[in-house]
């Protein structure tokens, strides 16, 4: 029996002498990535927003514009230009000479079709029809969007976040197929085409006659892009170290030490926080419950949390502390510094205690924890989903901080559905949450923060889970939506009002900026984006929605390693 096993081993060894490195996809022309796909690739439907295979939108299907969050610029893509020819009419000039990868010409009718289909099928673009009147094709390369009451910021988000689909293929699909079909054999205008997929990977093949080659002189270097299904942290980290990924977008604990450790692994910033801030981690407070409904209490909590400990110990410095306004660094220009200076909070246990005392929170029964002014006991919990290791560590810090100032707050780790349920139905006390990714406008943030009507929060699933009810705030959020995209001053004006409300009422407490986790290897590809002067400043991320935030340009700037 042992012989058998030994034989087996021998056999394997034999088979491998020489064969191991005989690969089907030539390493030197293949781009390995991971960090988006949480299970085997299973959908190539660009409208399956949360589930389409990595790259379906961005590599295969494309949008009218790209958006560069670091420079706050729109880059004409399938559209040459978009202009407001009248206050309510937005005219899109469509790029000529673009072909779908099945050879068919791409024209205005595809764009019109894409907008129209959002009317019948419930997809990400559908809400535009709340303020869009009609879509008219002027000629083969001109489309006009006629609005009843244009929401500029929102439109600004749609034009780079919505995949354009080919009418000649999608016209025949039923509404179900559009919203939840698998969408195999995707036909897009993009730089890559479907090559293959299996349990653990998705393979994209370069589209030899991609329009941008000639039109923009862009040429993505990798012949193949292989996206590997996410594996456990240790596997991912191990493969990063061994240079088996070119780009990895997983949250990898200890990556800092790897970057310093000289494995040829780099991140956008050479030193802390290493990563570009991708979203804000908030502490949500349930305002429908006592004592969270008390501003003073919320202020106390805000002052009680030692965010630096989370940043330094839990995350090992790969994240950074959030501005009290919670606005991401890319939106720095919108932050009203003076206001923050005046109303902002920071870690200060003494002040926290003072605030509590001042508001009548006293430790009556001297159990080390304060009671509410009305004398009732306070016993609260802060929750994150079980298994979200970094957050689980983080709320320990949060609760320790609160307990230190006398607030009885305990960490709890329910399974995700419980977490979600308590979030949607406002049964939680406090929880961590980071729903909003970076985008073209702070409006997406405030829309999320001040989502209304409160009655529909559970089904809309788009923010304001603490049930903050303030008509003024709601109105301001809508007002911001109506500010023209280019009008920075106009936006600042509204945003500073929103910040004032936010900082005084603290409906939620911004804690830290989660990174746009991105670690790159120079083993096979070089010239990665970085903060360095001489290199490009695109986003090296394969996450859904990031290819069209300059991710695709990152591919074109790569250089094969010598």
């Amino acid at each position, binding site marked *: 029996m042992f012989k058998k096993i030994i034989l087996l081993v021998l056999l394997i060894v034999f088979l491998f002498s020489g064969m191991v490195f005989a690969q089907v996809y030539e390493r030197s022309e293949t781009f390995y990535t991971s960090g988006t796909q949480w299970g085997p690739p299973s959908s190539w439907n660009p409208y399956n927003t949360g589930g389409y295979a990595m790259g379906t939108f961005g590599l295969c299907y494309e949008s009218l514009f790209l958006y560069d969050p670091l420079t706050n610029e729109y880059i004409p893509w399938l559209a040459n230009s978009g202009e407001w020819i009248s206050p309510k009419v937005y005219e899109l000039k469509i790029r000529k000479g673009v072909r779908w990868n099945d050879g068919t010409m791409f024209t205005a009718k595809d764009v019109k079709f894409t907008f129209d289909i959002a009317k019948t099928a419930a997809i990400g673009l559908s809400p535009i029809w709340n303020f869009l009147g009609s879509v008219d094709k002027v000629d083969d390369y001109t489309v006009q969007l006629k609005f009843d009451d244009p929401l500029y910021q929102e439109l600004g988000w749609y034009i780079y976040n919505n995949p354009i689909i080919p009418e000649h293929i999608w016209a025949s699909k039923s509404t179900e197929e559009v919203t939840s079909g698998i969408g195999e054999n995707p036909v897009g205008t993009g730089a890559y085409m479907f090559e293959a997929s299996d349990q653990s990977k998705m393979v994209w093949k370069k589209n030899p006659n991609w329009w941008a080659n000639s039109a923009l002189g862009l040429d993505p270097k990798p012949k193949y892009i292989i996206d590997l299904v996410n594996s*456990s*942290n*240790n596997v*991912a*980290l*191990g493969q*990063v*170290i061994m240079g088996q990924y070119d780009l990895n977008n997983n949250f*990898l*604990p*200890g990556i800092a*030490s*790897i970057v310093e450790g000289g494995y040829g692994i780099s991140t956008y910033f050479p030193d802390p926080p290493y990563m570009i801030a991708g979203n804000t981690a908030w502490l949500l407070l349930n305002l429908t419950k006592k004592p969270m409904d008390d501003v003073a209490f919320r202020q106390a909590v805000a002052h009680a949390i030692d965010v630096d*400990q989370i940043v330094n*110990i*839990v995350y*090992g410095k790969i994240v950074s502390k959030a501005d009290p306004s919670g606005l991401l660094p890319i939106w720095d220009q919108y932050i009203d510094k003076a206001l923050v200076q005046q109303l902002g909070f920071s870690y200060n246990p003494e002040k926290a205690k003072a605030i509590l005392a001042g508001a009548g929170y006293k430790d009556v029964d001297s159990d080390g924890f304060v009671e509410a002014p009305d004398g009732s006991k306070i016993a609260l919990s802060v929750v994150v989903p*079980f*298994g979200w*290791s970094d957050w689980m*560590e983080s709320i*320990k810090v949060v609760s320790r901080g609160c307990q230190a100032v006398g607030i009885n707050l305990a960490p*709890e*780790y*329910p*399974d995700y*559905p*419980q977490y979600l349920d308590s979030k949607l139905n406002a049964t939680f006390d406090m929880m961590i949450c980071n729903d909003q990714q970076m985008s073209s406008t702070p409006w997406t943030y405030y829309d999320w923060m001040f989502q209304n009507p409160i009655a529909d929060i559970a089904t809309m699933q788009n923010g304001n889970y603490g049930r903050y009810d303030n008509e003024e705030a709601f109105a301001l959020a809508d007002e911001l939506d109506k500010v023209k995209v280019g009008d920075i001053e106009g936006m600042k004006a509204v945003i500073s009002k929103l910040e004032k409300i936010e900082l005084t009422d603290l409906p939620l407490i911004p804690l830290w900026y989660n990174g746009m986790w991105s670690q790159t290897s120079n083993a096979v590809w070089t010239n990665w984006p970085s903060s360095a002067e001489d290199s490009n400043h695109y986003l090296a991320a394969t996450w859904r929605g990031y290819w069209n935030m300059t991710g695709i340009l990152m591919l074109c700037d790569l250089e094969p390693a010598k």
Partner: protein
Amino acid sequence: MTKPKKRINEFLYFALKNKRLRVGLSVVLFFLILALVGPLLTDYKWDDYVGPAYHPPSYEYWFGTTTFGQDVFTQFILGLKASFLVGIIGGGIGTLIGVLVGFTAGYHGGMIDEFLNMLTNIVIVIPTLAILLIISVYLKVRGVLIESIFIGFTAWPWAARAIRAQTFSLRSRDFVDLARISGIRPLKIMFTEIAPNMMSYLLMTFILQFGGAILIAATLDFIGLGPTNAISLGLMMNLAVLWGALPLGMWWWFIPPGAAIAAIVGALYLTNVGLDEVFNPKLRKL
């Protein structure tokens, strides 16, 4: 028939003579003592941030530190404690149920046997993970105790089978028949006539259940179905993998817990064989 007392002395005699038993027991005892006195050797809680992160074993951190600078030794000690708890409670419950079911089935036979057999088979086949999954969602916090009880309630089938077989062979012995004829109640017979003659067997069953419970617990903890409010050896491995201890070369984080489990359970098995050789004259080697 020699007198019980003399018999016990004899057992002790062989027990002390038996190398396997000596080795096995001393290893188990070593870890048990470590688990009991260990907490005195450390003044941290398992999740306190006590020192530098990624710190290899050193004088002040015997087993090094975790990604957050938690003391691995502290986690290890408390994990050990949890493991023994699971072993005793889980193993105990498992044995108890196994004994009850096995006895009743083996003693009564017939329909009762049929039924209990069926029950046993069913419990064997049903994926306990599925049940645990459902339960776990309903318990806000899962503790070591809950886990142990759960394990106990799912791990008894093989014990039941083994004991059933034993009882079968015993119930036909004359001394049992005698008792039966003289109209003693079955339950009484079971515990006065049969049980004493199976004591050794029961003890060994318990030991095996004990070891089994520890292993199962480790598995559950590893896939995150273990305690949510305490540390355990399985959870240590889970965390180590979660935080990339392998690629970061933090061997001191994932080696001790597994090694301890292997050592303890292995020692238990060894003890078991030792006992077998002690109780079963046929196997005594001189």
